[in-house]
Structure formats: C-alpha cells, structure tokens
C-alpha cells in the first residue's frame, strides 16, 4: 500500500513532529528527551483475510515493550483529517514524569503508590495535551487544514490494543505511526502512537506524493 518513498517521507515528517513535541516535553520536565527513529505501518482493521501481506490490527505489533499497566493519554482529531493520537507511559513512569513536572524530588527509596491520584490524571492529561497537540498540529500544518481536536482522555490499560482504545475498526485500513523515547537523566520510556482512518491516509498520501514530486522537480 505504501511505496518506499512514501514511507520514507512519512517517517521523516513524523520525526519532525516528534522533535517539536520533544521540545515541549523538555520545557515541562527540564530534561533532554532522547528520541528514536519513528516507524509506521499499515494494518488491516476489519477483514482478517490475507490482503497484500498487511497484518490485521488485532495482531499488530507495535513495539511497546512496557512492563505492567500503561497510562494512555489520547486525543481524537478530525473531521476532514481524522484519527487518534496516544501518549503512552507505564503507570510508574507517569508518576515519575509528573513529579518532575511538579519540580518534586524523586527519592529512589520512595515507593510510588500503585494508583494514580486525581492530580496525576490531571497532570498527565495536560502533558498529553501539550505533546499530542504538537504532533497533530504538525499534520494539520503539513496538510494546510485546521484540525478539530477534542479534549484529551486518560485511561489506565493492561496493554495497548487498538480495540481497547476506541479506534473505529469499521475502517478497513489503519495507518499507525509510533515512536519511543526516553529521558536522559531518568530511566523513563514513553511512546507516541498515531492511528489514522483510511480517508485520512489517502489525504496524507496525496500530500506526500505532492511533496515527493516537488523534490524531484
């Protein structure tokens, strides 16, 4: 479904959006964010029959190597260009991140509580809002269209599954971007996952083809 050139260009734009998001996260936690190279894949969301080697969404292999429950802060965006973006950390990483944002010292001997407090939910919602708006805003700028962005929602999940995150699986294909990152002075890993609907994939690919043609001109 995607040519090597389209994949390369999409990955490059995602790196740019992640770089901008990392800058906002740096401002919040005052620690360097160590980025990784973005990756993306097209998954087959509804019909499980073989289709050009595209795997079904239920078996998607997003490399989120997190131990324990995860906290997903997510925003929906649409309507012309629609999808859902998630910022994901483990519960423990979320609590550490919030303490950093609040300028609280992290005593290594301090046992973090098992559950998130209301303050934690509020803080991670704001962090997610800042980071994810930067990424979705990047897509909007690339396409030259304003995006309607809904308020962020925070969920604690046992693992990251598309169906658990209310993605519209009526769509036949989904484009998933993902990027993992860590904080330099604190072992704390996070990930960003962006899922797009088929109409949005087509809109994005149309724009990418224009960019590729411009680069050839």
């Amino acid at each position, binding site marked *: 479904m995607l040519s090597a050139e389209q994949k390369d260009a999409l990955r490059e734009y995602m790196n740019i959006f992640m770089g901008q998001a990392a800058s906002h996260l740096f401002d919040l936690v005052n620690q360097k*964010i160590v980025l990784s190279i973005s990756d993306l894949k097209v998954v087959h969301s509804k019909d499980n029959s073989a289709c050009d080697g595209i795997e079904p969404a239920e078996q998607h292999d997003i490399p989120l190597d997190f131990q324990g429950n995860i906290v997903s802060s997510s925003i929906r965006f649409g309507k012309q260009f629609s999808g859902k973006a998630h910022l994901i950390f483990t519960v423990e990483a979320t609590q550490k991140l919030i303490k950093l944002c609040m300028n609280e010292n992290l005593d290594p001997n301090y046992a973090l509580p098992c559950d998130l407090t209301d303050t934690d939910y509020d803080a991670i919602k704001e962090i997610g809002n800042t980071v994810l708006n930067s990424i979705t805003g990047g897509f909007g700028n690339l396409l030259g269209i304003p995006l309607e962005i809904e308020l962020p929602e925070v969920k604690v999940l046992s693992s990251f599954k598309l169906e658990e995150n209310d993605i519209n699986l009526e769509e036949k294909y989904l484009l998933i971007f993902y990027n993992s990152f860590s904080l330099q002075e604190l072992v704390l890993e996070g990930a960003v996952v962006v899922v797009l609907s088929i109409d949005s994939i087509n809109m994005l690919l149309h724009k990418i083809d224009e960019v590729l043609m411009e*680069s*050839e001109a």
Partner: protein
Amino acid sequence: LKILVVDDSMLCRKMVIKHLQEVLPQAKFFTAANGKEGYRLFQEKAPDFMIIDLLMPEMTGLELLQQVKQDSAETKVIILSADVQKITQQEAIKLGALKFLTKPFTQSQAEEIAALFSNKGE
C-alpha cells in the same frame, strides 16, 4: 566546493540538494544514508562541508560529528535535525558544529548556508 549530506531520509537528502543547488550551482554533492556510511564518505571524499542529521541508525549524527571533528577539526559541519530541544543544539555546538538548523529544510535555510559557505569556505 564538496558538500556531503548525511541523512537517513531520502526525501530530506533530495530536498537539501535541491534547495542548495539553486544557491550553490557550482557545488558537488555526495550523500550517505547513515552515520557509518557518512564517515566512510568523509574519509574518501574529504568534503569541505558536511550537513548531518542527528537521528540516524547505526551511528548518530552527534557521534559522526564527534568523529569528524577528532579527525579533521577544520571540516565545517552543519547539523540539520528535527530535534528542536535547546540542549541538543547546545551539545552539537559544543562538539564543534558550525550551525544548527531545524527541519524541514527550506530555501531560506539554503540561502543561509550559502552565505555561510561563501564566508567560511574560502
């Protein structure tokens, strides 16, 4: 004028060359898709300037910058990255980068580089 562009994105390499060719038509360009290949070409072609991405497989841009500066302090290196964190920019400048530019690469950045090359490339 020999310019080596090191970036894992083919699109970015094309855009950099496209924009720079307009302002530096006499320049000869070489490209590499990762830090290791970039270092090999640096040794082989002895470029006057290098434009290096930071986030690359095998050898990062900062590692390549460090290696290049160890071997040849006079080689001018410009970092072109999506990472817009100030601390990353400071690290690159501390390691000897002449300038830090943020992606996406634009025509005005190409003009900025051309002005830099004409001042320092002689």
